[in-house]
């Protein structure tokens, strides 16, 4: 097997420089590459374009990079819950491109799968489609959306092995599988790096061919954004 394991987050992020474009997995704070983000803060790289469904909260997730003014542009579908984000956006310091969530997923998948562009109905007739090619198929209108191009994809999985095979857990899966192999270099961090052969080949969500480097994250906070519970009836 081709060994993708690197020993540390430092090694995993070798080659990261200013002004790069990154894809980052996660929905809200669920399934975000916590260790890669922490390392990006440490490296202090700036001028970044980040493709990520959300932008974290003020003191967690991509919010940590926003605090340090490392991000030049966000490409997201939803960016609430973040005061510093709002300040930078309204002041013009931060460029924001909002795109539909399904379009975001599929532009990642197109990059992964070697498709140059896709036709999606999402956003037709809205400002999202402005300046874009539109086209009718079978009486319905579609917008042409192009595959993303990114330098690094940072994804987070539940379990992985040295071959780079990944298994995700629950809704922490989200965009992570679609971003694997969608950038020049895909870095996967996992909660648990298991010995080769331990993962059932039938049950691998993303085969290692889509992953360039894999490491076990040192620590995961896995913060909950909206803790909602019900009471046990007595």
């Amino acid at each position, binding site marked *: 097997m081709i060994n993708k394991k690197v020993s540390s987050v430092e090694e995993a992020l070798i080659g990261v420089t200013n002004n790069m474009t990154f894809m980052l997995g996660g*929905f*809200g*704070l*669920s*399934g975000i590459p916590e260790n890669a983000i922490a390392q990006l803060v440490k490296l202090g790289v700036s001028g970044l374009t980040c493709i990520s*469904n959300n932008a974290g909260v003020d003191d967690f997730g991509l919010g940590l990079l926003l605090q340090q003014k490392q991000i030049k542009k966000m490409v*997201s*579908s*939803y*960016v*609430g819950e973040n005061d510093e984000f*709002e300040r930078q*956006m*309204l002041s013009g310091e931060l460029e*924001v491109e*909002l795109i*539909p*969530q*399904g*379009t*975001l*997923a*599929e532009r*990642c*998948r197109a990059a992964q799968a070697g498709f140059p562009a896709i036709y*999606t*109905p*999402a*956003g*037709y*007739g*809205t*400002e*999202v489609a402005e300046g874009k090619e539109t086209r009718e198929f079978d009486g319905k209108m579609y917008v042409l959306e192009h595959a993303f191009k990114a330098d690094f994809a940072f994804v987070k999985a*539940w379990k992985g092995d040295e071959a780079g095979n990944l298994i*995700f*857990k*629950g*809704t*922490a*899966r*989200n*965009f*992570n*599988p*679609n971003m694997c192999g969608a950038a020049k270099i895909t870095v996967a961090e996992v909660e648990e790096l298991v010995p080769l052969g331990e993962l059932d080949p039938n049950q691998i*969500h993303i085969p290692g061919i889509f992953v360039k480097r894999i490491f076990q994250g040192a620590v995961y906070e*896995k*913060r*909950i*954004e*909206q*803790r*909602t*519970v*019900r*009471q*046990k009836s007595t």
Partner: protein
Amino acid sequence: MLDKNGIAKRIAKEVQDGYYVNLGIGIPTLVANYVRHDIEVEFQSENGVLGMGPFPFEGEEDADIINAGKQTITTLPGASFFDSALSFSMIRGQHVDLTILGAMEVAENGDIANWKIPGKMVKGMGGAMDLVASAENIIVAMMHTNKRGASKLLKKCSLPLTGVGCVKKVVTNMAVLEVTPRGFKLLERAPGVSVDDIRNATEGRLIVEGTIPEMVL
């Protein structure tokens, strides 16, 4: 006049046996509480889960199991998790039977605006544009008028659109309306609301044919 729970209760009656349903944030979320217990319905959340159950008991929350509102949830037997691409395959591919979402404005031709107010902080459309562009059966849950008393059922949306000609039905605190080629067709009145009340609160073309029954909740 209905309150938010009343709107949810009325919309719940539109949910049929065997439906896969996507619920938006706000009033639509409340719909789950009122769906009849003798029918089988599965709730999909676009962040990647089908077969959502109730909120977890305290202490049983899992950061890896949330809904599109980022709330901790549980799943029912038969549930499944999947990635974002497959999730929107369900939506775009019209496998989800019913989409219920909120709106700031709905136009008489079915246009909907629910994601952006110029000059204000824009949070983004999330999955709403995918949902409205693809769903065959979209019900909007909203107040009939805004906080200043202005109608939200318009001839033409004033806010940036989320989707064009897509809304099929609107349930407000005052009425149930169907979007037809000729405009909003009034189907039902909320308890204690007259047709004239509805006419006064509706800027878009309102079609009133015959006697309009009061909602049965």
